């Protein structure tokens, strides 16, 4: 049975039962089932996404690699220069400084919070109870014009400006097909602190039996957003270790 016929079956089911009877657990299970099944999701060892964003006419290609062992990187290319962001080699989280084009380590708090997400490869909701997360069904709300289940996901507490705070996200799952179409999170630091950030997801397409959103937008709720287009997704990509390794300029300068 292909994905779309499964969807139609679901639709018929949805009509025959009360939506509010749905628990967060059921919605999450159906979501995993609809995008390919939990086993398939767990079998993935790495993912490579080629993205593009458009900034005032300029198209920026972005490459993102995430591996199950936690290593990851984001590479933005322009004018032949490669800018690395959020690269983790298993020990160090680092990014390229745009002014000097040198690698610099992330601050300790960012790194600590980053490490909390290492168990979320592919999807926050995989084994979410085992990870100590809670998911609470808040009800049905209209978002992007369509009805969605609103689920509050609480993950490990994170540290913001030295204080432990709850890491809460609000996921919106389309009531027609149970895939997430939006996520909202309160901005926890910086000038936008207290605002609600919002990401939306659409253009779900299949890659090796798993459905991924090929279009996203990111911004602050009610204040405009930046579209992100997924050009391609490769599962279990071939990587080399040196793609992630922190090039320590202090060490190499000292050595020479």
């Amino acid at each position, binding site marked *: 049975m292909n994905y779309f016929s499964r969807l139609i079956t679901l639709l018929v089911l949805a009509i025959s039962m009360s939506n509010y009877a749905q628990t967060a657990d059921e919605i999450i299970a159906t979501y995993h089932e609809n995008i390919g099944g939990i086993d398939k999701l767990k079998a993935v060892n790495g993912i490579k996404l080629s993205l593009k964003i458009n900034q005032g*006419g300029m*198209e920026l290609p972005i490459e993102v690699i995430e591996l199950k062992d936690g290593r990851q990187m984001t590479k933005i290319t*322009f004018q*032949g220069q490669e800018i690395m962001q959020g690269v983790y080699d298993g020990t160090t989280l680092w990014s390229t400084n745009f*002014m000097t084009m040198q690698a610099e380590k992330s601050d300790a708090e960012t790194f600590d919070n980053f490490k909390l997400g290492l168990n979320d490869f592919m999807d926050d909701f995989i084994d979410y109870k085992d990870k100590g997360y809670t998911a609470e069904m808040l009800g049905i709300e209209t978002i992007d*014009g369509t009805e969605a289940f609103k689920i509050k996901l609480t993950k490990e507490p994170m540290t913001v400006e030295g204080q432990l705070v709850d890491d*809460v996200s609000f996921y919106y799952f389309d009531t027609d097909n149970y895939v997430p179409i939006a996520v909202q999170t309160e901005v926890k630091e910086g000038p936008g602190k*207290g605002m609600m950030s919002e990401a939306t997801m659409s*253009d*779900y397409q299949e890659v090796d039996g798993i459905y991924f959103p090929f279009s996203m937008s990111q911004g602050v709720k009610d204040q405009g957003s930046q579209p992100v287009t997924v050009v391609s997704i490769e599962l279990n990509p071939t990587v080399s270790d040196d793609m992630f390794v922190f090039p320590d300029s202090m060490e190499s300068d000292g050595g020479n």
Partner: protein
Amino acid sequence: MKTLKLTLVLLTLPFWGQSQDDAIKNGKALFGDLSARHIGPALMSGRINDMTLHPTNSLIVYAGTAGGGVWKSSDGGVVFQPIFDDYCQSIGAVALDPNDPDNTIYVGTGETWTRNSVSVGDGLYKSTDGGANWKKIGFENSDRIANIVINPNNSNEIYVGVLGALWGDSSERGVYKSTDGGESWEQILYIDQRTGCADMAMDPNDPNVLYASMWAFRRTGWSFESGGDTSALYKSTDGGKSWNKIHNGFPSGDLGRLGIAIAPSNPKVLYTVIEAEEPSKKGLYRSDDAGNSWQQLNNDFGITVRPFYFSRIVVDPRNEDVVVKGGLSGSISRDGGKTFKALGNMHSDIHDIAFHIKDSNIMYVGTDGGVYRSMNGGVTMEIVENLPISQFYHISLDNAKPYNVYGGLQDNGSWYGPSSSPGGIEAKDWESIGQGDGFRVLKHTTKPIIYSEMQGADNIWRIDTENRLIKTIQPLPADEAVKLRFNWNTPIAMSSTHPDRFYVGSQFLHRSEDMGDSWDIISPDLTTNDPMKQNQEDSGGLSMDNSGAENHTTIFTIAESPIDDQVIWVGTDDGNVQVTRNGGKTWTNTVANIPDLPANTWTYHIEASVFDAGTAYAVFDGHTQNDMSTYVYKTTDYGASWKSIVTDDIVGFARNIQEDFVNPDLLFLGTEFGLYITMDGGQQWLKFTNNMPAVAVHFIDLQPQTNDLVMGTHGRGVIIVDDISPLRELSSEMMSKNVHLFDIKPTVIDEKSDFGGNFGAETQFVGANPNQSVQIKYYLSKRHTFGKMGIDILNAEGQKVGEVGPGKKKGINIVSWDYRLKPPIVAKGKTITFGGFTSPKAAPGTYKMVMTKGKDTYEQPFELKLDDTLPITPADYEERDRVSKLLFDMSESLAYMVYQLDEMIGHNTNQKPSKYSKRLNTLKESLVITTGDNYVGTAEPQLREKIANLFSKVATSYDRPSANDMENFDRLSKQMKEAESTFESLKKKFKNMDQLALKDKVSFLETAN
């Protein structure tokens, strides 16, 4: 019975609603990307009702505002964010659960400083996740909530002080208690239908000890009464089971509003401020024995002034002798209440004060003009600059480009400001054009003249903005026997056909044909002239309060028909709807023809139709008679008959309606709780909630050139919904299609400077600008979630020149193309060349948007136009674009050359350094920067940088390239030719060129970034 009810519901369902049930049940499923834009202003901010601090985190501050919702600061009061936009914006009290202050927040709605213009509340709300989600937990008809007190030892035990209805009897008032976290409530102190709980306090050491002040009060449209024999201060020592009056030492006779405060550092010390019959007995009283006895300490003006507005006492949490009292200026005592001095300079009318939890030098003060911070114990005060909670009574628009918004504010004068400004609409963009309580402001349609009205026509200023000259033009009585009665919010109006004509309403309609220099009265008294409603000098109760705000039996709205200037509509605050069809010679009161409208309901607005002289809409506001119903009527026969166009979809009493200029069935209604829109002449209304708070909308106008809907809100400033024209096209037929494309309006290329400065924007509110890009608008009948969807932009030749990320919403989508073309590929160097990031603007002309959605394709052409108001010619543009293109190509040719050169150098590095390899490197070093960094370590620019810089200079100019630009261009062309020739000769000498497998130029450019 059930069946009957169901049948009735089915019968009243509009036909359109039945066929399109799914699509139009919910405004959120329709309005999509049509979103409200907030432009403030915030520089004068607005009225604050309550300040609340987090008990343990000193950085967290809440402001409960009179009409603009709840705002939270997480940085000690520097920057605030709204956290309550979807609910009633009039706030009485905000409280945090002391046991869970990060998550559990209570908001009691309905402001409690009961001036005439107060908004109403609709209950108590609770959040258990720090304000992200809210649930109403009762008190639907409480109107206003004064206090919420939570037992610090038991989160489930909550006390709520309900002040209750201001405009009528109500038994939903007094003190309530919950023992289950707000699930259920018990009324534990109730006096009568006109006496509510005005203030409450709990002993911090013994939560069973409670104090509650009860206040008898009532407003009507024409009077205010504070005080009575039921006003009293009560104490309970058993958690509210029993209450006793604690009046030992109180003045005799009736009491008015009392404030109560406990010294947190010594709960035996209490302060109350008493409104009493005898002026000498009013003022501050102190008890040092937990209320057993009281002693009067002070009856200064600052302590006794306007009790209904200022009865707030706050004691320093660390010092029982430091007391602050709200007031006209606010007063502070450091000797236990014996003497007071005024707080530092700030906006007048101080309603609440909060001391920092650790340092009493730091104070937060809520006023009629926003929140102030003090770092030195109230000596100097600084205003919070990003609370756009201004309270407009009225707004109007002009036809400038960009158009300006004019309006008057509660206690904050009158202003006008632009709908768009470089860098955003900042505080400095607003011009002050009046004082006091500002009301209606109108711009003369052809001359640089603004009319601005203040407080019951005390002044109607005529301002010559060109010469900065001001004169007052309000009509004065010419007849000894006649006293003119002007409403606090006096109506003024203009004619759409006679630019110098100007109207003012007292009980008569005054008309001037010379901009207010001379006046004719063109009506009899159009009001009920009820003498019972004309005794304002007796208003106030125990404290006389004849500010003029209660003037009644006056004209409130005036509308000359845009079709026929002999047809004039007049509505009065005591419920008349008068019309003349002969320019004022004879008048007909049509109110008797209005079905189901209670007598004397305030005629708040009459909208004369732009389609037909006999058609008008009338909006009535009954809330000052304690009637919260919505009343909107339409006539098509000069008032001979009226028909209600209200449905159950609407929540809140209405104040204003705006008719569309194109589609007579498209109407916009402003109520106490937000904006409602109908597209079928009122058969069904949808609430508009996209970035639109549930704020009281006092006035709506529609700008004819831009089709922007502009709202004057009473608590969130000016809010604009840009270009509502897609709503004109919505029909059930259109909405049955999967995709409907709206016309794309011709877009003018914006060449204007965007130097805005934005200095101070870190902490100042900056209003959003409208979108200047090409706006592609379409309707989707279902959200696009699966499969591909994309939008390409093609030029007239069919070449793709851009790509846009499409919107996927069900409903109206609006996506922008910023008419920027891609920047050139630049040669790879050690660093970035900033000139190479220049995206040239697309040329004026015809373009096409092509949307692909799954297997379907949709196309829509559009125009990009030159700004013909600027000194730019098409020939200038063409020359600019021609030279830009040459430089663009030059940059890409250089990029390809450097690519080949890099490959050749790379190949040679394996070999011994030679003269040849040195020549390769020398050439490269002359083409691009090979050292340094992107900041101050930058190296000397080379050919790449020079080409990119000239490209940027030419392409970003509005003008043709200058002679000097062209000299520079010639020089770079020459250098480029020389480089090419050097490169070609090196290439010829290169051995093994085939081993390099070089890409050809086209494929190089396609893959390079």
